[in-house]
Each structure stands twice: as structure tokens, then as C-alpha cells.
């Protein structure tokens, strides 16, 4: 029987022992790159493997065999799958996503503008939602099982059950139509001033905040509660420390990592929420672009948007994991 399990001499192993934190972070980053690559295969290859011929869809009713063949050649669909995948991936890495079938325009140009708009909207929503959610979560823990906590619990439970479009139209009906204090649709264009822009996205931002707030708050509450019930919090209490000091000095450093994780996860959730909200408010972002493309089966646009959304999502998840790794005292101070 062989017994060659001596791995200590490997350079990777030694690096890991000397810099466990760095090694884990690098490992996590590499995993994300790998994941993104796999996702690209899934989005491109999976789509190709599914039934349904693009050329005939593209031509609609007027599809004669000759026309289909011509279109296939024109769109490059007659070449082998693998070749096309690597061309597509090569282009995507350099920011070139090909040409839209519907508009015959460059996908990248459209995406460039709209991605900025979407990130602005999601980012603005995050800036408001994150402190609010964490604050409410702490409040809820402070009043645990008392009236404020129960009220927050019921409201947040209701809020996570509301579809985004319902909240959106409710806000439009009241604030834009009935009271006229906000604008609809949320039109933004290049050269628009920041104040104008913020005014235009007030309602979509409010919708996103409401959508993500309840989730984030409930998860924050759970994260803090699990820290509060740990044995070292009992130790703090038995040391006669004040509640304030116990929370700030003993609970907070340990709750930080889970809360950061909650925030990052919900930011990833925002990225998706943006799709529906953009359609509701006719906001010129990535989400609306993608939904329009799906309706007309404009594959290059769908694939580009799918990949970009997935990339942002994967990036945020990676960020969450890395921050959690860095916040862990066991890894920061190795034996």
C-alpha cells in the first residue's frame, strides 16, 4: 500500500501556512474567476443547446429554407459552436459583445450607458437602505420580543411578500399621480444634472429600498441575535459590564462579519430587483434593455446582459466572502 501523503514540501502548502489569510482570499478570487468562466459557458452553450432555431424565430412568418440559410450565414450561426463561443468570450473580455440582431447596433455601446444608469440607481438605493436596515435590525434586537420588535417583525414579513411592481405602482399612483410630488416615468439622459437625476429616480429608489430593506433587516437581526446568545456575551454580563459596553466592545466586533455578509448578499439581491423596477418606471437601464431583448429574442443582447448581471452578482458575493474572511480574528491572527 502506498503512503505518499507528504504534502508539506509543496510551495503552495508553505505559502498557505505562512499567509493563511492571503491564501484564502486569493483562493476565493480564483474561484470567482472560475465560476464566471463556467457561467459564461452555461449562458452561451446552454442557450445554444436548448431547442428553438434562432434563424426561423428571427425571420418569423416569412421563413423560407433559403432565407433561413442566408440568415444563419449572416449571423455566423453556421460555424461550429466552440469557435463561436471563444470568439464571443474573447470579445466579451475586451468589452465587445457583438451586434444586436434587432437594432443592428453595437451591444457594448448600449450596455455602457445603461449599466451606468443601473448601477447609479442600485447604488443610490443601497446608500439609503444599508444604514436604515442595520439600524432597524439593531433596534429590533434591542427591543427583542417587545412591542417595537413585534411591529417591525410583522411589517417586514408583509414587506417581503410584496412584489416589486406592486410597490412601484402603489408609489406611482400616490406620489406621482395623486399628489404630484414625484415624477413618472423616471427618464434620465446624458448631461442631466445630479440633482435632476436624483429627483427623477426618487420613486424607483424608494421602491428598491422598500424591497430590500425588510430582507436585510431580518437577516441583520438574526445575525446579531446569534452573537448575543453566545457564551462570551454571558461572560460580559457576569463581569458586570454595562449593556452599552457589552454590545460595543464584545458583540459588535463579532457581529461585523455576519452583518457585512448580509449587506453584500442583499446588494446582490438589489442587482436583480433593479430589472423589474426599471421596467415599472421605464428607466433606461440594463434591466429594461434585457427584458426588451428577451421579448424579441435578441440573443446577443440577452447573453451580454446575462453575463454582466451574473458577473456583478458573483463579484458582490465574492466581496462578501472576502470581507468575512478578513473580519475573522482566527484568520487574522494565525497560531
Amino acid at each position, binding site marked *: *500500500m502506498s503512503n505518499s501523503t507528504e504534502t508539506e514540501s509543496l510551495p503552495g502548502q508553505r505559502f498557505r501556512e505562512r499567509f493563511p489569510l492571503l491564501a484564502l482570499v486569493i483562493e476565493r478570487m480564483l474561484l470567482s474567476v472560475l465560476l464566471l468562466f463556467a457561467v459564461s459557458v452555461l449562458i452561451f452553450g446552454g442557450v445554444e443547446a436548448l431547442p428553438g432555431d434562432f434563424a426561423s424565430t428571427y425571420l418569423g412568418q416569412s421563413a423560407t429554407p433559403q432565407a433561413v440559410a442566408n440568415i444563419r450565414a449572416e449571423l455566423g450561426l453556421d460555424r461550429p459552436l466552440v469557435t463561436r463561443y471563444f470568439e464571443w468570450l474573447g470579445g466579451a473580455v475586451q468589452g465587445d459583445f457583438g451586434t444586436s440582431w434587432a437594432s443592428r447596433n453595437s451591444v457594448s455601446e448600449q450596455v455602457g450607458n445603461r449599466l451606468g444608469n443601473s448601477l447609479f440607481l442600485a447604488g443610490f438605493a443601497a446608500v439609503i437602505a444599508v444604514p436604515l436596515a442595520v439600524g432597524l435590525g439593531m433596534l429590533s434586537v434591542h427591543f427583542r420580543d417587545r412591542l417595537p420588535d413585534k411591529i417591525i417583525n410583522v411589517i417586514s414579513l408583509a414587506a417581503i411578500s410584496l412584489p416589486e411592481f406592486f410597490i412601484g405602482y402603489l408609489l406611482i399612483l400616490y406620489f406621482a399621480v395623486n399628489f404630484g410630488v414625484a415624477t413618472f416615468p423616471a427618464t434620465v439622459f446624458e448631461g442631466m444634472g445630479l440633482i435632476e437625476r436624483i429627483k427623477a429616480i426618487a420613486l424607483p429608489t424608494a421602491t428598491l429600498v422598500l424591497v430590500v430593506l425588510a430582507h436585510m433587516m431580518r437577516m441583520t437581526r438574526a445575525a446579531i441575535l446569534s452573537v448575543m446568545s453566545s457564551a462570551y456575551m*454571558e461572560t460580559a454580563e*457576569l463581569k*458586570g459590564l454595562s449593556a452599552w459596553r457589552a454590545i460595543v*466592545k464584545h458583540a459588535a466586533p463579532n457581529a461585523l462579519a455576519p452583518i457585512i455578509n448580509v449587506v453584500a448578499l442583499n446588494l446582490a439581491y438589489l442587482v436583480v430587483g433593479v430589472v423589474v423596477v426599471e421596467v415599472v418606471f421605464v428607466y433606461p437601464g440594463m434591466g429594461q434593455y434585457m427584458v426588451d431583448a428577451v421579448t424579441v429574442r435578441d440573443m446577443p443582447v440577452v447573453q451580454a446582459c446575462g453575463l454582466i448581471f451574473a458577473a456583478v452578482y458573483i463579484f458582490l458575493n465574492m466581496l462578501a466572502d472576502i470581507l468575512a474572511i478578513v473580519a475573522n*480574528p482566527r484568520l487574522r491572527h494565525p497560531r
Partner: protein
Amino acid sequence: MPETSSNLLTVRNLKIEATSYPPGEPPKRITIVDGVSFDLQKGRVLGLIGESGAGKSTIGLSALAYGRGGAEITGGEVILNGTNILALGKGGIRKVRGARVCYVAQSAAAAFNPAHRLGDQVIEASVKHGLMTKEEARKRALYLFRVLGLPNPETFGDRFPHQVSGGQLQRAMTAMALCPNPELIVFDEPTTALDVTTQIDVLAAIKHAIEETDTAALYITHDLAVVAQISDDIMVLRHGRTVEYGSVKQIIEAPTQDYTRALVNVRQTARQEAPDQSKPLLKVDNVSAQYSNGFKVLHGVSLHLCKGQTLAIVGESGSGKSTLARVVTGLLPPSEGGITFDGKPLTPALKNRPREDLRRIQLIYQMADTAMNPRQTVRDIIGRPLAFYDGLRGAAKTARVKELLDQIEMGNGFIDRYPAELSGGQKQRVAIARALAARPELILCDEPTSALDPLVAEGILKLLMKLQEEQQLSYVFITHDIAIVRAIADSVAVMHRGRLVRFGPKSQALSPPFDDYTDLLLKSVPEMEIGWLERVLNTRRMESAGN
């Protein structure tokens, strides 16, 4: 006892209740502690002893006016230096906790905050209560680290909790409790989570530190032998009530209650060993094993067991004793060596092993709670091996289940109960019946009594020995308890860090000359004898002086 002014702590008629939430039933009020009274003078140690659920930790925490997990102090008085601390408000009790009364938890690993350095946590209470400046507190911490025999006391405080060993953490927690110069420390099973060879050091350190600082202490444990080393007085508790309360000498040497007597006398009989035979039933030949991550847990272990006999495997946690049992069952196939059972080689991996071989070797676990499916009745639990191995059905199966219940000395009334409706000892008996149902020749017992209270454990051991005699069973009995080994074994194997350090008939294995490890192990096991700790420490000091 009359209340005297010299009492540091007086507890009178303490009553503690909690609300329990039994599944599928409305919440119930339960009484955890009822009518407990005691006195403690300055500089003295009172041992609180009892089984799990006796309410001893709850009583200990009442000295800090603290109820854990929903426990509420609903009656009685806890008087500390003339003040009833139960009557103090939130602010008042905060001035007592961490300043005048400190607490040492069973699991220091969980009780220390992973985010802060040990030194900062040790001095925190002293500084925050304004008892000393940061500099003074640091100096005192350094002094305490020295007293408690911690390595590199100057830099020890710079470390994080996860960077030091369990025994060191427990001592650091003691330092944390001693730092503010409290009047009273509550030690809540401070050595229970430690191995015996580590326990003796921590015990010695705690004893030394208590003497040095002249602090009073409540010492909570389930081990009478441990408490005998450290206490002046002992209170024996059962089901939240006082059974007996007296000096250590009286409790150990002249107990008045049956329960105390049973605790003191448990397992002091030894069984005559059977002679070794030429054809062993189980033969482990030069077996090594490793986990899938390549970590080697067993190094060339060879031993054997004869039919109808008991082989006791002794060792501390991490010694590989349970792993050896897993290798025999096939759960962890050996990386080297082989196992012979009844003269034929045993298939290494479980999934390739013939059903007949599986039937002949059965395993009994330490925790009967987790070893039985909570959603099956006793009938299903014992009946399944009957159906699985022997194809018994219906009435024949029920008859056999009842027969087995008789063998384990439980009535037929238990047949339709779920495990949650049984006591700890009854669960372990059902687990034994499940093993018997397979008509085994060898039963591997993995610490089957260590989670049980001493009296219940004694009953289980007697049952196992009775069954051995009736059915010619062979046992591999894994334990860390030398007293059990003396009581039931024919042959003994001592394991340490994955290696077999000693193997042979009990009379040889447990008599000198010893190897270093067995010597250390045997000397570390607390004995039910006042002054044992001093004696061992003195011998050690002489030995090291002699070197």
C-alpha cells in the same frame, strides 16, 4: 445552621424555576432548585456535587444573581456580606458581578471573546469597575499568570483565545476571575472538558491560586474525587434538592445518605480476569489508519481479544481509541494492516462486508440519545435488526422484542414508547437490546456509561456483565475511566496519540513497571481520597528534584 457574622455568603431557601416548552404541549413551569441553604466563610471552598440536572450550576450562578436560559430565582435569599443581592437593582448587581463575585465557566473556549486579546479580557472587569488602573491590573494579571503556571507569562496576555490550548484557556479564565481580587469565585466544572492528564495541572493551579489569594469559592462538579481535593465542605445535590451537606471528611469517610454512599462506593470492586487463549476471536494486526485528508490517526496497532472476554481500551481524547472501533466496524478502512475475526480476515470496508459479518459485530454508542432514531418506537428500534437479519415478522417479531426487553430488565410496557419518553439509562438499555437483537458475538462499547450518572452507569455495567456470562459475549470496551477498567476488563490496551503504548492481561497492564505515559495517566486519575492531589504533587516535586 445559625447565621453568623463571619459568613461571606449565606444562601437561604433558594428556589429557582424556569418555563419549559415540551414538544406538542403547552409550556410548563418547572422547579430547578428547591429549598437549598448553605453558608460559606471567607477563604473557604464549598463543593457542589451532583448529576446533570441536579441544579448545581444554577445554584452557583445565583451567587451572581443570574439565571441562565430563562431560569428565574423565585424564592429565598442570597446574602453576600450582609446584603441580599437578589434585592439589588440592575445597577447594584452590576457592581457585584465581576468585582466581588466572579465566574469561571466550563468551556473557557466559548466564554472568551474570540475578537480580543486574552490580556485585555482578563483585566477588563478590574479596570471598568474602577478597582485598579490599567497598569496595576496588568501587573496583577502577570502575577496571576505566574501563579497559575502559564507559559511565557509576560507575553501570554498578547495572545488571542484560539491561539492557546484548552488547559491554558481554563487557567486564563481563572486568572480573569481572580484579577479584581473578588471575595468569591464560582467555578463551574472548570476541568470537566479537559483530559485527565491536563485536569490535574489545572486543578493544582486553581487550588494554589485560591490559597495564595485567600478567596472563597463555590466549586461545582459531578466528580466527587475532584471535589474532595479542593473543597473544605461538600453539598450533595439531586433533582434540585440537598441530599447531604457536611465537611469533606464526613462526606467521603462517613456519608449518612444512601445516595452519597453510592457515589462514594461506586466501582470499587475488581473482577477476576480470565486467562488468555490461543485462538482469539478478534485479532487486530499492525493496523494503521488515516482520515481522507491524509491525517494519520492510528499507527501500527496490534491487539487481540478472546471469546467471552472483555478488552478495555483506555486513552484520552485524541488517543485513537474510538477510531480503532471505527476501523473494526469498517467505517474507516485501515490504510495498513488487517483484522481477523473468528479466524477469517474481515473485509476492510463496510460497504463490501457480508451481512453475516455485520450481524456478528455490533456497536453501542456513548450517547444513546443520538444513537436511536427519535421518530421510531422501541418496538421499531429493537425490531429492525430482527427483521433485517432474521426476517422475523408480525407476532414472532413482537414476541422476540418482548424477550429482549426482559433481558435488559425493562418491562413490556416500554414497547410503544419513543426514545424521548425514556430516561438516559433506559435509552442505553434499549441500545443494548438493539445490539443483542442481532445475536452478536462481539460488541464494541464506545464509552457507553460516561454520559450517564454514576448509579445508572453502575446498573448498565452490571447488565453488560450479566449478558456476557449468559451469552458468552465478547466486549471491546472503550473508556477513559480506569475504575471501570479495573471492574470489568480481562485485558487492557492503553493508547496515546494513535499508538498502542501498553497491552496485556489486566493484572500485568495495570501493575508496575509502567511506561511513562501509563504512569502519568494512572497517577492523574483523581482518587476518592482526601489529600490525594498534594500527595501526587509532592511525589512529582521530589522526582523532579531527584533528576
